[in-house]
């Protein structure tokens, strides 16, 4: 089992690499233009400059390599460093001779490249074998060597660079330390110009709350319904819930969402139609508000999955109830409740659990429309906005995250299968 798991995890690495390459290539072919939404009053030359600054015109492989590095190396390192407080950036080694005095030839080039390097990689600087911290005050960067006269690295705005400070003409303001790991290059969205991972982290709670809650609700309602349906096949309850499930399955979520808004927000005024993402639960009242604003999106999503899951529970249960072992259990005189709830249900749930695990990534994608309707503004809405705005980096990243979820939950489903069904053994 352990060996199997390791093999599966290893195989998933090339799978994901291929997926990311395909996602990248397809999106690269898309005609989306990040400046296409700018007002027409902005002249084409300016547009071109904006594109250039965004890196839109980089060749495909360069963009892909950049993305791989930033997404697979930089971002995990950032998160790790933030959590542990360690710094992994390799130090930049520098001899005392590398620094040139003000006015000497080449000092401007050296210092500006130094500052740029320090800023973009987050390296620490070593002078003569001694690690240095970088002091930053307003626009100036200094090497803090512990003495009263820190080495002056450079001034951002006008490029004045000196070597030695401490003379009377340059004053060192009380500076704050440049947060080194923060300055590692990150993968930026074209729309918000901010790190995409931060956007994802900011939005995950909303999506998890709404989507997770609806999935849980769906499971807890659907499984009992399916069991009763199968146990009382062709009863009125079975017929009614079957119709209900068919309706829930066939009517698209956006339509039900609009119906809900019309009845419960416009007509009755019970629930808000706008989801407040900034709401924080602190006490009972705010919790009730959180429930009130989540009820409609959760119900809409839950309806759909409930329909799906109850149908599967029903058919799998029907199959098992007819089998010999159930008859044996009954003839042994075991209570009916135990026969159904323990013997039949446990075996019937095997395919359902697989379905639940495989459905989780689908839930994230299915929430896209619902999030848009209720303004839940989670991951799904982020994806829609990115597509509309031609924000390819965000689309690429989100699509890839969805792909990771898919691969991961496939593995989870397989493992669960083996755990639940003793007949299945992986070697």
């Amino acid at each position, binding site marked *: 089992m352990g060996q199997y798991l390791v093999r599966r995890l290893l195989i998933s690495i090339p799978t994901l690499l291929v997926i990311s390459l395909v996602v990248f290539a397809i999106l690269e072919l898309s005609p989306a233009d990040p400046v296409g939404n700018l007002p027409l009053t902005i002249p084409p030359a*300016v547009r071109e400059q904006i594109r250039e600054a965004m890196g839109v015109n980089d060749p495909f492989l360069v963009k892909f390599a950049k993305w791989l590095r930033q997404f697979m190396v930089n971002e995990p390192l950032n998160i790790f460093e933030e959590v542990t407080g360690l710094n992994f950036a390799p130090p930049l080694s520098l001899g005392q001779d590398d620094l040139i005095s003000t006015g000497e030839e080449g000092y401007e080039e050296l210092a500006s490249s130094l500052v740029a390097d320090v800023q973009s990689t987050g390296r620490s600087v070593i002078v003569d074998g001694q690690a240095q911290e970088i002091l930053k005050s307003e626009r100036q960067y200094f090497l803090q060597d512990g003495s009263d006269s820190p080495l002056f690295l450079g001034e951002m705005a006008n490029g004045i660079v000196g070597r030695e400070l401490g003379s009377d003409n340059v004053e060192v303001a009380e500076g704050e330390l440049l947060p080194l790991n923060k300055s590692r290059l990150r993968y930026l969205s074209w729309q918000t110009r901010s790190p995409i991972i931060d956007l994802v982290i900011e939005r995950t709670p909303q999506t998890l709350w709404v989507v997770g809650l609806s999935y849980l609700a769906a499971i807890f309602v659907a499984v009992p319904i399916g069991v009763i349906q199968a146990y009382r096949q062709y009863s009125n309850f079975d017929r009614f819930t079957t119709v209900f499930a068919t309706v829930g399955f066939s009517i698209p979520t956006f339509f039900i969402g609009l119906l809900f808004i019309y009845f419960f927000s416009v007509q009755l005024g019970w629930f808000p139609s706008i989801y407040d993402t900034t709401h924080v639960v602190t006490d009972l009242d705010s919790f009730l508000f959180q429930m009130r604003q989540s009820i409609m999106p959760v119900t809409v999503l839950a309806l759909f999955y409930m329909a799906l899951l109850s149908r599967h529970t029903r058919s799998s249960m029907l199959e098992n109830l007819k089998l010999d072992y159930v008859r044996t259990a009954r003839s042994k005189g075991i209570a009916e409740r135990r026969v159904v709830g323990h013997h039949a249900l446990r075996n019937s749930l095997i395919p359902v659990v697989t379905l639940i695990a495989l459905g989780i990534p689908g839930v994230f994608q299915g929430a896209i429309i619902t999030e848009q309707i209720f303004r839940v503004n989670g991951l799904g809405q982020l994806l829609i906005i990115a597509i509309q705005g031609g924000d390819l980096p965000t689309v690429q990243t989100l699509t890839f995250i969805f792909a990771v979820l898919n691969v991961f939950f496939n593995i989870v489903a397989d493992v669960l299968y083996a755990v639940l069904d003793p007949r299945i053994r992986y070697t």
Partner: protein
Amino acid sequence: MFGKKIVVVALLLVLCTGVLAPVSAQMGDEINILYWQAVSILNPYLSGGTKDLHGSSIILEPLARYDENGGLVPWLVDELPTVENGGISEDLTSITWTLSEGILWSDGPPLTSADVVFTWEYCVHPDFGCNALSNFADVENVEAVDERTVQVTFGISKPFPYGPFVSHVAPIIQAAQFADCVGANAPNCTDQNFGPIGTGPYMVEEFRANDVVTYVPNPNYREEGKPYFQRVILKGGGDAESAARAVLETGEADYAWNLQIAPAVLNTMEAAGKGTVVTVLDPDVERLMINQTNPAPDLGENRSLYMGGENPHPFLTNDAVWMALSMAIDRNIIAEQLYGAAGQATCNVLAQPAIYASANNDSCLVQDIDGANALLDEAGVVDSDGDGVRELDGVPLSILYQTSTNAVRQSTQALIKQWWAEIGVETELRNIDAGVFFGGDPASPDTYGKFYADIEMYTNSFSGTDPETYMGNWVCAEISGPDNGWLGNNIPRWCNADYEALVAQMAQTVAIEDRISLAMQMNDMLVNSGVMIPLIDRGVASAYSNVLEGVRMNGWDSELWNIADWTRMG
């Protein structure tokens, strides 16, 4: 067992009553604004569109801005510089602004001329793709004369020097905050771009990109007792229709921006009586661009190339033909059925500001299919082979009519196709994804700049209130073609020496009446030479709650330009 059930039921009931309590009315100290396109960034110089500019206009302010009538109002200055008061030099090459006394940034320090100079340096840095670059066109230098005085010098004489630091497109940012964010480093400054420090009535409390912005009052705001609200919530996402509903029907929000909805739907919502729909007409004019060159595919490389006038369109350059095309259109039907509150029929390419609108072409507002048919018959453009399509010199009047993909545009296309069929003109419709059509990819054959069609439809416009740059779009040098990567502004590929002379004259004219008369002449020339067929003067419809006071809907600046004055009744 039984007791347990009762407890559970009772608990559920308590929960339900709590949950079902009607949505409470908004708190008096909060205002909810809905933008269905969410704000992505609060730095207007890096923004991706109008919504971002509006979002940042609550925080950042320009030296002067436009009011709802398109008039310039001094904002961070006491007096608007003019030639009369000496603010603009006699040779029109420099303008001097004097900042009002006592304006503080929201974090404490005073606003100085250094901030203004920095704003210019920030935007024009060569490694930075600045959105507002055209506002700073021709600026040679910006220098701080003293703490509160700034002089802007232009490389040429500028009769209308109110581009730099004017309107929500080019506000002042704080030098201290953005000092490390110059040039290529600009996009990396997420904290600054998400929370600029400003002089405006509110400042950012929390910003969630593409979702919601929360603002709180600026403690250092210059006007005593303002702003009124303790918190401004600018929520994004969803669609225009549900935004309108939240203001007009459920009353959950106080203001909703840009309601592009079917007119009938909007009217029904407004009838609920909770809010008001306001419209402003923009200089945006939806028009048909008439290709003056031949786009025939068999020309290969030379499709839609001007070639010094050697490649004319086979029939659209004929006066009778384009006149008939224009006469056959009922602009009022398009306006009423498709645009509603957000559009008005027009016969001018320059329809706003109202003072610039020419009245000479208004005859086009009445559809005249019979007249169009008669005109074509008279000109000898008749259907000679009996296929229902007229011919000019043996070339059938068969038109490829393209535009971007958009429900209203496709409906307009369908209406126009039908009208043109009635005058014996065959039309093939085509729509192209907006990202491709307006995207400037020189390799794509489908951009509006390539214009591989006979007629194309889109909206063109200008920012601010001065049409000089806009009218300058249609000079010969701007003709779109391979030499400028098909990015030239003269899309119809029209070249006229008289027009050129008028453009040159306007660049030397200061008096507003003379500028108006020149602009009108140019407009009439464009419309009466068969270069463009104007259809609709577009506007923006927004809605606000009936309890909100102080809204002055503005099409020339940010809609939230006077949010400091907004209050709630009662």
